[in-house]
């Protein structure tokens, strides 16, 4: 079963056993989900980008409700923005995107929904993995690109940029492996303008955290 990039990135951000999102992926996880939605719209030929703007080239719905919601929002925007503007705008609705994606992965038989309580008090919904085949396939695809010298496929470049944005490589790779392939990760990810904008947006989040952290 092929998954869309928003589905893939969410699956990678999930701690399989607990069914909770990896803490490592926060706070950039919202941006990674937003980036994944834009990446899928770009590969579906609905939007295109350059270093200064993101624009609609075909407003026709894709048939994927999640992508079409974002596309409609971009089409309706009174002013054009760049990729970073749209990453930040869509990330504001990341909770809704995530909930919809979780439900979709449940209906595909990849996750199950577990209602429970966190610290005995707070209602909490978790999504443990019941079929890990899809996630293993995605990881194998990523490793294939990173550890070989081939020219990457656009979809793989996008996904690698999304994993970088979500801080996921430190979860997938050992420190030694990461040291070995960091330059390759950056080279592959930076081929795509959306990935570069995503990295810029995330650098800004961490800069903000660093700026305000001493005050907390």
């Amino acid at each position: 079963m092929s998954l869309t990039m928003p589905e893939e990135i969410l699956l990678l951000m999930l701690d399989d056993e607990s069914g909770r999102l990896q803490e490592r992926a926060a706070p950039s996880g919202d941006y990674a989900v937003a980036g994944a939605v834009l990446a899928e719209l770009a590969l579906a030929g609905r939007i295109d980008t350059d270093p200064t703007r993101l624009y609609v080239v075909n407003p026709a719905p894709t048939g994927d409700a999640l992508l079409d919601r974002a596309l409609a929002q971009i089409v309706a925007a009174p002013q054009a923005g760049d990729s970073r503007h749209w990453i930040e705008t869509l990330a504001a609705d990341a909770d809704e995107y995530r909930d919809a994606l979780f439900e979709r992965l449940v209906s595909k038989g990849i996750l199950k929904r577990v209602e429970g309580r966190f610290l005995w008090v707070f209602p909490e919904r978790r999504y443990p993995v019941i079929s890990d085949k899809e996630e293993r396939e995605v990881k194998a695809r990523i490793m294939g690109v990173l550890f070989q010298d081939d020219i990457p496929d656009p979809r793989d470049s996008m996904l690698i940029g999304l994993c970088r944005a979500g801080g996921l490589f430190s979860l997938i790779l050992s420190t030694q492996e990461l040291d070995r392939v960091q330059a390759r990760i950056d080279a592959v990810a930076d081929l795509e303008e959306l990935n570069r904008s995503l990295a810029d947006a995330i650098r800004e989040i961490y800069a903000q955290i660093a700026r305000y952290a001493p005050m907390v």
Partner: protein
Amino acid sequence: MDISESTDKGVKVAALTGRLDTATAPAAETKLLALMEGGAKVVADLAEVHYVSSAGLRVLLKAAKQAKAIGGSFAVASPQAPVREVLEISGFDKILAIHPTRDAAVAALA
């Protein structure tokens, strides 16, 4: 987008004109991949291309990937300054052979 073909010293040259973006990417991709059949040597001459979007860049990447896969060769020639800048920002200059002129590209592949 207008694409004219010629052959120079056994190298096929596709001269692209106009914008290389989502609207023109499919035709450009089809043309470049067709020229590449049988492992041919192909140059995409961008002298008359004034704009390349992300979708346009993906076409060049796919062409380079295809050339590598089938044992052909692919190079980009004479990008205008703004296009060259986009190629450099994205690191395409590390993956693609980019030459300042068509003659230099042909000479490199011939």
